[in-house]
């Protein structure tokens, strides 16, 4: 149900995430490594859903696109950890608490204060608009439109 309206809202709330690294001194490879590491983290953690990962990556891109500060390769670790923290709060039933974030994910490299400061920074830069549709939601919509409504049984099994 609500398919047409959902599509309208997906189009309306879309935000542009392209060229997010343009203003920063961050390599493409280090961002790719970060995303790879996030996949590992969410793979190990049982309680998360798919959407948490997509949300974390998109939050990172959106912040890098909108911020005025310039970041280098060394900052991306803190940024990624904080994005996981925020995304997990939004999407999961049982989110990562700050202890696991500090000890397990960042190996005591950052203090709680640093993470909270970064979190505040991210949220204020994005003006608390953290609920934008992620890539996963577009994919799910497309998937449903292509395969979900078909009468053919084989096509339905793909869905």
């Amino acid at each position, binding site marked *: *149900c*609500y398919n047409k*309206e*959902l599509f*309208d*809202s997906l189009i309306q*709330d879309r935000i542009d995430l392209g060229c997010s690294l343009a203003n920063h001194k961050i390599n493409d490879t280090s961002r790719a490594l970060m995303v790879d590491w996030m996949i590992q983290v969410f793979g190990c953690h049982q309680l998360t*859903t798919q*959407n948490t990962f997509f949300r974390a990556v998109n939050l990172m891109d959106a912040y890098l696109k909108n911020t005025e500060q310039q970041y280098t390769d060394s900052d991306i670790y803190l940024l990624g950890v904080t994005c996981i*923290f*925020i995304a997990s*709060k*939004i*999407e999961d*039933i049982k*989110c990562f*608490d*700050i202890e696991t974030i500090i000890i397990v994910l960042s190996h*005591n490299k950052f*203090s*709680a*204060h640093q*993470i*909270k400061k970064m*979190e*505040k920074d991210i*949220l204020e830069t994005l*003006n*608390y*608009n*953290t*609920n934008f549709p992620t890539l996963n*939601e577009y994919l799910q919509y497309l998937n449903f439109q292509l395969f979900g409504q078909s009468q053919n049984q084989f096509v339905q099994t793909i869905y």
Partner: protein
Amino acid sequence: MQIVIINSNATELYVIHKILYQIKDIIYYYMSASENVRYIKIQKIGEGAYGIIYKAQDVQTEEIVALKKFKLSDNEGVPSCALREISILNQLNHPNIIKLISQIIINKKLHLVMNYYDMDLTEYLKFNHEEFHLKNIIYKILLAVEFIHNRKIIHRDLQPNNILITNNEPVLIDFGLSRVLSPNMTPGVTQLWYRAPELLSNCNTYDYAIDMWSLGCIIAEIALNKPLFMGSSEIHQLLLIKNIINGNEWFLHNSQFAKLNNLFIDLINVCISLEFLEIIIS
């Protein structure tokens, strides 16, 4: 001093490391505390599990606003319910849904600034029984709920206390429990009287239907002027539901509904759908 540290084992070093970071945090905390005096708190209106609501006055514009203060914002950064509420309210722009004016931080605690209305639906029903206004209110609530469902958002806390009335128009508030639809969610939401049977049976793959159940209960309450199911525990609530709703034409045998219009009963019957209930009983 150096020799001591080398001799001590790794766990002790780790403890020292952790304490040092905690001290650093405390020092930062007191250094960055600042006063913000744009809003003056007048009185406390309500208190929930997640925070306290104050009536307050804006110093600059002398407008009366409602301040919602979140507890627990110290240990875990920004609390997750606050994050969800702010991001969802920012996304919604509808005349029957409350508007978020701004969010500010006073004394390291996050506060939401919203419009202030002084009457909720329970109070309104005590004094007003005009059919025209009640119909209008039901219609507007339905529109608002449709609007949020279109955006894949479930409210999860619909009850008469969360519907405010101003000039005979309803305003939906309290999105602290609401979230975007996902395959796995917590079953312990909504106030007990308005909780859907799938939630009562601890199911965690529910969808928009739980909001429709609460809406059905609210509409019945508007019509009957008292809550439809008043259970004292989860089992009692399920029993009450089972006793009142038996079969598809339950309302015909129920004397409570005798005076109501047929279309009206149809609306309630659609909202309080029996599909899930039959699964539970069988």
